[in-house]
C-alpha cells in the first residue's frame, strides 16, 4: 500500500502506552499515516490540521462529546463526516464499544478499508486491557506479599512463633474465615497499630 493510498488516521488517547500499541499495529498492517494526539487542549485545531480520514478515540475520554459536536457542525469541517461505519454494521459498533474504542470515519472512505482498521483496533484494545489487568494483579500480589511479611513479623514477635508457624497461622485463619490471606494480614497490622 503506497503512502498516497494509506488513509490518515488520528489516535486520540491519553494513555501513551495504549496509543503506541495501537500505532504499532496499524503500521504493521500497512497504514503509514498515523498521528497520536494526547493533549486535549485545542483538540479540534489539531484534528483540523491533520485532516484525518479516520479518528480513533478511547471511550473513556470525556472529549468524545467534543468530537461529536465537530461532526454536527459540518460547516466547520472540509467534508461531511459520518460516525462509525454505518447503520447496518451493528456488530462492528458493538465490538468496538465493548473493547473501549470509538471510531469516527470521514465519509467517502470505502467501507472495505474501514473494517480491517476497526478489527485491528478492537483486538489491540482488548490486548491492552488484558495487559492492564495482569499489571494490576501483579501489583496487588506484590502489595499482599509486603503486608503478609509485616503481619508475620508481628505474629512472630507477639506470639513467639517462627516464620513458618506464623505463616501457617495466617493461612489457616484465612481459610477458616473464608477470607484472603492478605485481608487477615491487614487486619493484624491494623489491630497492632491500634494497640500500640
Amino acid at each position: 500500500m503506497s503512502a498516497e493510498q494509506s488513509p490518515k488516521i488520528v489516535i486520540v488517547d491519553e494513555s501513551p502506552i495504549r496509543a503506541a500499541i495501537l500505532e504499532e499495529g496499524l503500521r504493521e498492517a500497512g497504514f503509514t499515516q498515523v498521528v497520536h494526539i494526547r493533549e486535549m487542549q485545542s483538540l479540534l485545531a489539531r484534528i483540523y490540521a491533520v485532516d484525518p480520514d479516520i479518528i480513533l478515540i478511547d471511550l473513556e475520554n470525556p472529549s468524545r462529546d467534543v468530537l461529536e459536536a465537530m461532526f454536527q457542525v459540518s460547516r466547520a469541517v472540509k467534508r461531511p463526516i459520518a460516525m462509525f461505519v454505518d447503520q447496518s454494521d451493528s456488530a462492528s459498533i458493538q465490538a468496538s464499544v465493548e473493547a473501549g474504542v470509538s471510531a469516527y470515519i470521514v465519509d467517502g472512505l470505502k467501507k472495505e478499508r474501514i473494517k480491517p482498521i476497526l478489527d485491528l483496533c478492537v483486538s489491540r484494545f482488548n490486548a491492552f486491557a488484558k495487559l492492564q489487568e495482569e499489571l494490576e494483579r501483579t501489583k496487588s500480589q506484590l502489595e499482599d506479599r509486603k503486608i503478609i511479611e509485616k503481619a508475620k513479623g508481628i505474629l512472630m514477635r507477639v506470639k513467639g512463633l517462627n516464620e513458618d508457624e506464623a505463616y501457617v497461622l495466617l493461612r489457616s485463619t484465612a481459610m477458616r474465615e473464608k477470607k484472603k490471606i492478605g485481608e487477615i494480614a491487614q487486619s493484624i497490622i491494623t489491630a497492632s497499630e491500634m494497640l500500640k
Partner: protein
Amino acid sequence: MSGPLRIGFIPLVDAAALIVAVDKGFAAAEGLEVELVREVSWSNVRDKLNIGLFDAAHLLAPVAIASSLGLGHVKVPIVAPFNLGINGNAITVSPALLSALMEEIDGDRFDPMATAKALARVVAKRRKAGAEPLTFGMTFPFSTHNYQLRFWMAAAGVDPDEDVRLVVLPPPFMVDSLKSGHVDAFCVGAPWNSIAVDLGVGHILHFVSDILVHAAEKVLAIRQSWADKNPDVVAALVRAAEKAADFIEHPENRTEAARILAQPERIGVDAEVIQRTLDGRLKISPDGTFRESDRYLLVGREGAGRPDPVQAAWLYAQMVRWGQAPLTPDGVKTAMAVFRPDLYEAALGHRRPVEAPAPFGAFAGPAFDPTDISGHLEAFEVGRWKA
C-alpha cells in the same frame, strides 16, 4: 430477569432520582437489582444504551429524541417512561463578561431579555473593535444547554452561529475553561455552576428557569425493543424512580439525599454544594450573594416525573430551528412518541394529579403549539430553519 440491570449515568445532580432509587433501596423494594455505571460522556451513555451494554440510562432528553430520529448517529428507537428532571441548568459568565454586560444593561439584571439585549450590544462593540467573538460552552449538540443558550441570545437578535462561538465541553472541564479564558460563559447543570462560583471564577447570570419556566431536562431512557419485552421491569423501575423523586422533594430528606449523591462513586462533590441545588438556593457570586428559586430543579414536584410529549415536540422544534433536523410530520410524531406518559401512568396504576403550569413559559416568542411547529418557528427572527 437475568442478572442485575445495568444503568448508565453522568455525575450530575439531575441523576438524583436514579441514584437515590438504587442507593436508598427503592429499587430493591421493587425487586430490582441495579448496577449503576458512572460514565464520562453523553456519547458513551448513548452508545452503550443503543448496543445493549446498558438496559437503561440517565440521558439528555434531546439525545433520546435524536437517537430515535437517527440524527448524528445510528438510529435506535428510545422510550422515556420517566422524566428525571425539569430545569436544573444555569448560565455562568466570567467576571469580565459580567461587567461588560452590566455596563450595557438597561433593566433588571435577572430579566433574560435585558441581559440578552446587553449581550447583543457587547457583541456589536467587540465586532467593531475587531475583538474575537465571545465563546460559550455547552455540553452536547443535542442538549437542552445548547437550546437554552441559543433561545436566550437569539431573542435579542444574537445569531448563535454567526455572532458568537458555541463549543462543546465536557462538564468537568467547564470551570477550568472559564478560568483559563478558553470560554467566556457556559450553560451546564449542577454542580458545575456552583463550583465555578465557589472558586471565584464565575457568576451565575441566569437559572434556566428564567428563560423557560418549565422545560424537560434529563430522562430515564430505555431502548424501545427492550422496554417492549420487559414491561414489568420498566414499570418497577418507574415506581422506584418516582418514590425516590418523592423522597428527594421532602425538605427534611434533602440532607440525606445530598449525602447519598455526594458519594465518590456517584457525583463525588461536596454534599453541601449538592444540597444548594436541591434546595434551589444557589450562591451566584463569589462575594457570597445567594439567590433562591423554587424552580431551579424540579425532581418530583409539579408532576415532574411524568414525561410530556409536548416537551419532546419543543425539543424537536429546536433541532429544526438550528438546522439539526428537517421538519417533517413523521419527525414530530417520532419525537413525541419518545416521551411515554402511558408507561408512567401504567406503572403507577393511576393518573397522578398534576398541577404543572403550562409547559415552557418561555420569556420570548409565542406560546408553543406542537401541532403547528412551522408557524411557531416563523415567529422567530434568528434561526437556520427554512420552510
